[in-house]
């Protein structure tokens, strides 16, 4: 069973572990040489220690703020959150998801002991934790990441015995991560340091020595034991909470656009809330960077991103780029949904209800561009409200809003690419990620990799003009919008001329 789980989920497990290791290993050298002099670093540390936004996000930066401490403080925050999210997703996949999709039923029917699936899952999870710890950093920092992963996974598995479905179990797991983050943030900002002992994400703050890892290790074992006990008390495929399967809701859709919107509703709402929260937090965190930039002290990666006439404009533009890359990922996923529907035979059902051939794909494209606009507007509006309170500079609210919403043409262009592929070359739909990847590399690493400006300008993400300066015209934005429309139309035309390709 353990080997079967490893084999079935090897891609998922492998990608997560590699992503985590890459994040920790690749960023470490950057902290060694970000600040040219000791003086500059102390300045930055002082700023960071008194910045409420960074304290909220990363926790307290301990004195004296060596390069290693800064690395643990900043990357550690990202790495532990990612490890916790990984814990939730992996734990549910290994336990309840195999139960819900019927794979476990087959094994249980072939003589597998009832306790074995959970034991095997815990064996795999422990293995992952050890790999994470050793891979990320073979010291206490790595152990903290591994244990954060394992304790979240164990708690999620425990909750998965109670949750009625795998989806609910994931939701419970993410709630644990959210509560952990809130507890850690409260502990660090409100002088309630003891609270960090109770939070998986607070482990990083309290683990000043090896013995401090003990309480959460014990909690992990207890949660795992409790999960195994509870699993014996529930029905196969059902949690301790009964699921509510009956719903009286109706669908009022009479067009493919209305139906696509109805189907995308929940995911669109989740994306909007998540991107608005992340984008705004990111924008609000920039005060330190902007101050440093004013003094001309930011170099390296961040310096390349935020360089320009006005430091505040540079930083907000950078935030817009990051948000745009995330929203483009949404757009590609959303637009290629039509390809998935075609493969599964859902498009057949829609078309045989008397709908025109191009209509479902066009509807999906419309929902995608409207959804992208919604996410960007929400993120821009929230940033425009929050950012002026924490950032110093001129026209912060206007700039924050325009740098976000101004990225809409880029999402439209990438939606066009996806629609073109899904319509005309359906088997190559996955190639829609290529322009996003290229654009992201050109924009984020263009200066560092010394790519000529002419080539860098091909990226869709760096064409939003500074609204306050009003120097560059927005021709590029018009071109990208037109490109999105033209590619989409070509895709629809291609769809008209080909067979539907299910399977």
């Amino acid at each position, binding site marked *: 069973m353990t080997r079967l789980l490893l084999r079935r989920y090897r891609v998922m497990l492998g990608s997560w572990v590699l992503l985590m290791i890459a994040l920790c290993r690749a960023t470490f050298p950057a902290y060694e040489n970000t600040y040219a002099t000791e003086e500059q670093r102390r300045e930055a540390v002082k700023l960071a220690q008194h910045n409420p936004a960074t304290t909220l996000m990363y926790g307290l930066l301990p004195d004296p703020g060596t390069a290693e401490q800064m690395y643990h403080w900043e990357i550690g925050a990202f790495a532990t959150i990612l490890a916790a999210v990984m814990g939730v997703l992996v734990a549910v996949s290994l336990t309840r998801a195999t139960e819900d999709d019927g794979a476990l039923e087959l094994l249980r029917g072939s003589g597998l002991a009832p306790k074995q699936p959970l034991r095997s899952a815990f064996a795999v999870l422990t293995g992952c934790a050890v790999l994470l710890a050793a891979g990320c950093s073979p010291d206490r920092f790595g152990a903290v990441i591994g244990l954060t992963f394992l304790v979240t996974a164990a708690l999620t598995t425990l909750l998965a015995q109670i949750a009625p479905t795998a989806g609910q179990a994931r939701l419970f797991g993410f709630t644990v991560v959210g509560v952990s983050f809130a507890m850690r943030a409260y502990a660090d900002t409100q002088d309630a340091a003891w609270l960090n002992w109770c939070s998986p994400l607070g482990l990083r703050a309290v683990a000043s020595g090896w013995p401090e890892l003990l309480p959460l290790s014990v909690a992990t074992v207890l949660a795992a034991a409790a999960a195994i006990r509870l699993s014996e008390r529930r029905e196969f495929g059902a949690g301790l909470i009964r699921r509510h*399967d009956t719903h009286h*809701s109706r669908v009022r*859709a009479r*067009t493919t656009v209305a139906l696509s919107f109805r189907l995308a509703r929940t995911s669109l709402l989740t994306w909007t809330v998540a991107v608005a929260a992340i984008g705004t937090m990111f924008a609000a965190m920039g005060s330190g960077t902007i101050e440093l930039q004013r003094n001309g002290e930011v170099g390296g990666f961040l310096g390349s991103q935020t360089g320009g006439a006005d430091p505040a404009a540079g930083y907000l533009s950078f935030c817009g780029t990051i948000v745009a890359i995330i929203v483009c990922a949404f757009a590609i996923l959303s637009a290629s949904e039509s390809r998935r529907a075609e493969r599964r035979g859902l498009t057949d059902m829609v078309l045989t209800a*008397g709908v025109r051939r191009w209509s479902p794909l066009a509807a999906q494209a419309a929902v995608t561009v409207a959804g992208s606009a919604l996410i960007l507007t929400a993120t821009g509006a929230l940033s425009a409200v929050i950012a002026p309170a924490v950032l110093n500079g001129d026209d912060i609210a206007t700039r924050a809003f325009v740098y976000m919403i101004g990225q809409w043409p880029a999402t439209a262009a990438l939606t066009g690419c996806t629609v073109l592929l899904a319509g005309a070359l359906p088997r190559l739909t996955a190639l829609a990620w290529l322009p996003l990847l290229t654009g992201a590399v050109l924009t984020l690493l263009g200066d560092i990799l010394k790519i000529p400006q002419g080539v860098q300008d091909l990226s869709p993400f760096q064409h939003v003009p500074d609204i306050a300066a009003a120097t560059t015209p927005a021709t590029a934005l018009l071109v990208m919008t037109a490109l999105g429309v033209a590619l989409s139309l070509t895709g629809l035309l291609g769809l008209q001329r080909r067979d539907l390709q299910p399977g």
Partner: protein
Amino acid sequence: MTPVIEIDGLVKRFGAFTAVDGLDLRVEPGSVHGFLGPNGAGKSTTIRVLLGLYRPTAGQVTVLGLDPARHAAEVTRQISYVPGDVALWPNLTGQEVLDALGGLRGRRDEEAERRLATDFALDTRRRVRTYSKGNRQKVVLVAAFAAPTDLLILDEPTSGLDPLMEQLFQRCVREASAAGRTVLLSSHLLAEVEDVCDTVTIIKDGRLVESGHLTDMRHLAASTVTARVSGVVVDRLPVPAVVEAGLLRMSVPRDLVPTVLGILAEADAQDITCMPARLEDLFLRHYAVAAR
């Protein structure tokens, strides 16, 4: 009367693979037409051409007087389609799926939907995710029979249904036919279509094998006669026979049955049985196929 479905020399190729090779098919208005063939014979491909989901490589196709390749939306608005492998949106409830399909078509009969859902014992308040294969099929069957359409195209529609529901399904087909609707019922099981169809078309390897009225086809098939004989009669019989442990067994064409029975009676044969022509035999004869 103009046929509801008329196919002349349909060819459909996917690269080097020929799925349908010169097929002819005519379905008269108001009839229930069985579309039979082994798995992989090209039934579903033909149906997808009729629905305008595939473009024909060659041949003429007319459905309800229109070319489905060019007027797919107009044609399918008049068609209720039930696929063999039903895929639905997992987050929607059965009722929401009925709403969506009815809403897109622009015409529906909610009263009929409610009645059929009750008949099929389908709880439409549950999410599709929680449905079994049979229940997913029921959702689409309810939508298909309830929709105010002229033509029903059913592609192996009973694969997930229990025997009781299969009977109900046959009743629905008869009612649809009585209401003047035309039904094309594809299946690889003869028994499924034998009870409800007036006409059948049998295809194999993408080619037409037999087509016509079921009653005519039965005439083509041979009866099976068995008898226990003591004397030597095998030589006098007009058809070849085999003897196993004193039991004589032979396959007799319909017009020779009286002659054979006369000879057996003369020879004082015991335990004479005569099984009427079974369509199954005719059908199975065409079923031996090479893997494609």
